[in-house]
């Protein structure tokens, strides 16, 4: 695993920021998509949602998360970075529950717990490598 030059923030911090930006952008995408009128023939393309300010805020956050992500990819292998970035599968449902009032069933909470366990298993060896360095 390559070390990031000091000029760049820590790639692990960038990975955490990326997850935060993705969570916020997905929540805003849902808000924007829900408020867009459905027109037959165009509704699956998502292009009509570009009239929503929420979609543009989400796009700005997607760009910020993308900038973080490409710098993460410079230093962390994809097979480690991508599973860890899946922390958003915990953060997004939580965001839906808190901000969009979407219902989360007990089974879904259990699924979220298993995802957290998986993230811990992936992150543990990485943390040991970091300690040795």
């Amino acid at each position: 695993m390559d070390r990031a030059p000091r000029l760049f923030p820590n790639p692990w911090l960038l990975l955490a920021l990326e997850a935060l930006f993705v969570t916020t952008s997905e929540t805003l995408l849902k808000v924007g998509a829900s408020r867009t009128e459905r027109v037959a023939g165009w509704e699956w393309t998502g292009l009509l949602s570009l009239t929503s300010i929420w979609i543009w805020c989400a796009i700005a956050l997607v760009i910020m998360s993308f900038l973080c992500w490409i710098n993460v990819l410079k230093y962390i292998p994809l097979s480690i970075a991508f599973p860890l970035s899946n922390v958003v599968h915990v953060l997004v449902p939580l965001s839906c529950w808190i901000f969009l009032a979407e219902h989360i069933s007990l089974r879904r909470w259990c699924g979220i717990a298993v995802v957290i366990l998986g993230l811990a298993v992936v992150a543990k060896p990485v943390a040991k490598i970091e300690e040795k360095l």
Partner: protein
Amino acid sequence: MTREQTIIAIFVFATEVTTTVVGQLLLKHAMEGSTTFGFTHPRILKLFGTGVLALAISFFLTIGLLQHFDLSFFYPIQGSTVVIITTAAAIFLREKLSFPLMIGSLLISAGIVLVSLS
């Protein structure tokens, strides 16, 4: 949702996952290459541009899917790409897959399936 709409949703979802995987692989390849050849090298720019295009297609298909499904339902299903990308990184980018990484990826996918079944 009608049967026809379900078929369209499955097709759109499959395209969305494929473009995500291809886009991520191309981006990783480009960013790794940029440390050796520099970001402005034509080959790196081509890889990067194609990766961004693939992810842009995936992005708009995601918005289309979000108009029909709850975010808390759709997003975890989309997460099934974790196993596909981890495997693809090992095959195409020759990244080493450790045992904990494989178990962790499988656990994440299992959790995602559990979430999407509810």
